[in-house]
């Protein structure tokens, strides 16, 4: 153990760690700034959201430590994978039966009345670990991933589709997209044969049509006005200022009013009730309004560093498991950031997806921290291997 820790800290990925911590703290400050008015309006103390997020971060730090010290190789362990799958099943069943609605999606569950938990966040990390783990084992068994046949991955694919369907039932489209993209990316860069990938795509197409059709049948309100509006407003949000365009227009106004230098920390006006819940998915607009290009730059550079670092490890590592987990985590963070930022800047419809590390939200930061821990753990092994070779 002592040796492990010594090796560990010698190969610790400080830049990744520092970036992660900085983003979290920056997010915390911005949550404080943007939620103050919301809290007052809700007749809570002005620092209500700040205090809650601070607690979330403390719990998240524990999760990070777990992820960072637990050797990633064990994620291919059958028992661990099984436990994770059970947890997933319970959570999804729970949310679909006793879920709590918020913001048009029924995607929260109340964990023993203590905190609200979003199973879809867990699903993101679960899909990464489960796909990586099972594909890795299949590859081991067949000696090479090249030999893995479509039949061999029916099981994980089916589970993945089940998860997608379940999250889709919560009508959390953003999460569906993220979980979908994560799994497809992992499958892609696992190195599986193109032919298999093609077959997978075909199956996916069929299932996708069935699932979408089914969801439509079961939830006939899936294309409700608010969702259709999200597409319509993209063309000219100012036309829909009183309806679906309200959020996006006020986001624009915040970003635009910030300009190059910003209004100064704490000086946002759009957060004063114009932008509903500015501490969640529109936090970047407030950052832009208060801190200008500087604030936006910090967040984008920080996120880009984490994503590219993850992808770089994935590309250069010799361990397929590390590749798939690191790549998956990078795709998760990157794609989620993309959905958030493109929604708020008006190049993609709003999906209600939060900005990783920055937005308010307990489940999100908890699982992202766990994921960051895992990534740092992988990075440590990666560096260790490199040192050994040289």
């Amino acid at each position, binding site marked *: 153990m002592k040796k492990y820790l010594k090796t560990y800290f010698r190969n610790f990925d400080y830049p990744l760690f520092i970036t992660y911590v900085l983003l979290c703290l920056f997010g915390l400050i911005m949550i404080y700034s943007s939620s103050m008015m919301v809290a007052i309006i809700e007749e809570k103390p002005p620092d209500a959201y700040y205090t809650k997020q601070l607690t979330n971060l403390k719990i998240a730090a524990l999760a990070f430590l777990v992820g960072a010290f637990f050797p990633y190789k064990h994620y291919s362990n059958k028992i661990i994978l099984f436990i994770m799958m059970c947890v997933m099943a319970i959570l999804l069943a729970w949310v679909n039966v006793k879920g709590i609605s918020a913001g048009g999606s029924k995607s929260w569950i109340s964990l023993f009345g203590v905190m609200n938990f979003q199973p879809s966040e867990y699903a993101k990390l679960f899909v990464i670990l489960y796909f990586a783990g099972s594909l890795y084992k299949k590859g081991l068994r067949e000696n090479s991933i090249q030999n893995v046949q479509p039949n061999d991955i029916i099981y994980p694919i089916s589970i993945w589709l089940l998860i997608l369907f379940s999250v889709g039932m919560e009508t959390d489209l953003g999460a569906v997209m993220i979980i979908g993209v994560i799994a497809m990316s992992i499958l892609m860069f696992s190195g599986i044969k193109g032919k298999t990938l093609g077959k997978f795509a075909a199956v996916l197409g069929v299932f996708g049509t069935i699932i979408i059709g089914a969801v439509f049948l079961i939830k006939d309100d899936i294309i409700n006005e608010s969702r259709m509006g999200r597409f319509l407003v993209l063309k000219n949000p100012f036309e829909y200022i009183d309806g679906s365009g309200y959020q996006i227009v006020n986001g624009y106004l915040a970003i635009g009013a910030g300009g190059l230098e910003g209004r100064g920390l704490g000086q946002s006006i759009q957060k004063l009730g114009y932008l509903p819940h500015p501490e969640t998915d529109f936090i970047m607009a407030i950052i832009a309004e208060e801190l200008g290009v500087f604030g936006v730059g910090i967040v984008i550079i920080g996120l880009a560093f984490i994503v590219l670092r993850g992808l770089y490890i994935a590309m250069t590592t010799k361990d397929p498991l590390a590749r798939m987990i690191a*790549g998956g985590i990078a795709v998760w963070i990157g794609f989620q950031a993309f959905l958030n930022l493109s929604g708020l800047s*008006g190049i993609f419809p709003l999906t209600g997806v939060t900005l990783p590390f920055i937005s308010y939200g307990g489940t999100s930061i908890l699982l992202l921290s766990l994921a960051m821990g895992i990534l740092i753990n992988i990075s440590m092994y990666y560096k260790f291997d490199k040192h050994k070779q040289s």
Partner: protein
Amino acid sequence: MKWISLLSKKRLKLIIYAFFLYGLAIIARLVYVQIIQHEHLTELAKANWDREIPFVTERGNIVDRENEIIVTNKLAPTLYFIPKQSDDIALAARQLAPILKADEAELLKKMQKHAYLVKLAPEGKNITEEQVEAIQALRIKGVYSGVDYIRHYPYGSLLSRFLGFTGYDNQGLAGVEYEYNKILTGNNAAIRLFTDAKNIEMAHVDDEWKEGEAGATVQLTIDLTIQQVMERELAQAMQRYDADQAIGIAMNPNTGEILALSSFPTYDPTNFKNVDSTIYNRNLPVFMTYEPGSTFKIITLSAALEEGVVNLEHDHFYDPGFTMVEGARLRCWKREGHKDETFLEVVENSCNPGFIELGQRVGSQKLLRYIKDFGFGQKTGSNIAGEASGILFSEKAFGPVEHATTSFGQGISVTPIQQMQAVAAAINGGTLYTPYVVSRIVADDGEVVVENKPEAKRQVISEQTSAQVRHALESVVAKGSGKQAFREGLRIGGKTGTAQKVENGRYKDGDYIVSFIGFAPADKPEIIVYVAIDNPKNHLQFGGLIAAPIVGQIIEDVAPIVGIEKSQEQIEKVTVWTDPIMVEVADFVGQTVDEVVQQHYPLTIEWHGEGTIVSEQMPAAGSKLMQQGTLHLYLTEKKHED
């Protein structure tokens, strides 16, 4: 243990490229929104944040030549309500309703609107200061009173058909108010409260006072005192003669400045909604066109004198009561004719055959040119809204008959303002001035935006000719048809006129416009006054008896204002007031009502019975009657068979 796939490296590279691309797209988009659209969006954001309580600025005043206020504003605040600032909107509505004398339910509905700022109109629009005090005493949350004004007319209906009025939001809808609306309207001031979306004031953004600007003042050439005198006289005439309409203009003949401008009936501008639009939309002195009648003879006279074709004192004319032009019998208003007379007497008597002779001596094309030079047939350029240009004969259509009738003012159509312009030129030394009524426009900050100066269009006749015209016209008042306008020592000159109204190309039976155009003093005119009474009833009489005394009275009353001093040298009036004027009664039996009226007989005529033909008269023809006496004419439907 480990397996390596080259494929996975390639595919990871693809993913990295994809991320790079989308990163660039997002950055480009953010740069666009945040930097390129920065100013535009900041403006939008500010408009989104601010809550303006309007402070309506004052509309510009309209003042007379002495800066006496004719139209101004009265403070009448308007209530605004910010629903989100109220704890109990129902209570607020209940409190407000009785003060505003409004329906509570309706008011409540308005106050519950999902708007940041509700204008409580019409209930709370332009309320009195007492109401404001009562409301302020209640301290109702969210209720604001914004400064607002209503138009105030200290002189009521005075000049109303020229001034026009304003509508609900103080926008000019007619007359000067409409024509100069842009100039009179100011930019509203406002208190800008920067508030959050819940309309709570923002602590760290200062309230702004949005500077407004009051409207510019329009100064007229009108003299309020002259205007008041004129309207008083016209109002009396309207009543006495039960007239349809009355028109009056007073002007400085040496500049073209209009000193008074009246149209009757008038109306109360605060009550324009209950007034027929033909009243407030028609400014008669410029709008109405009709046959000028005898006042037009001044033009023929001026032309003849300028051309040197007549010597008023020495040349004689014989009027048998008619003259023949191309087989048409053109009658003098006096059936039996004026017999032998000098041309001065032709003017004094307003003798039609005499004027036909003068017109013929000038020549048809020359007369037409004089008429045009005197400004007829085109707008005067007075800049008064709704001006008409009148109708003249074209050169082609100007045959001998048209030439002859035009010489005594028939067959053409002119506006009162054109007559003023022309006669002013005839008597002021020969210069045709553009009449104007707006002298200056002064902005809120005192800057003079517009300043109108007298504008001479051309010299139409010489100073000498003009002096002769003045003398002849003074003689008309002293000795001729304009006697009723005579005032001791004032040297009034003038000319009567009676014109039958034309409707659909035909003369309208029994519907006359009697007019008089007079000026004083005759040696150096300071004021020229035109009065026309449309369709006087009760007394079917001619211009000299109805319009001339009005003009005389107006000139007498305003003489001190325009600086006319009483003169000792004046053409002697033929009779003294105390002498009764005896008039020989003509034979009217068998004539139609129209024929009688056209003769402008200087007697009060009382009509008896129904019909169009005179069957009997009392006293009989040939007997003498005092001018103040009454001639009784009895009417019947059919002509006698004899």
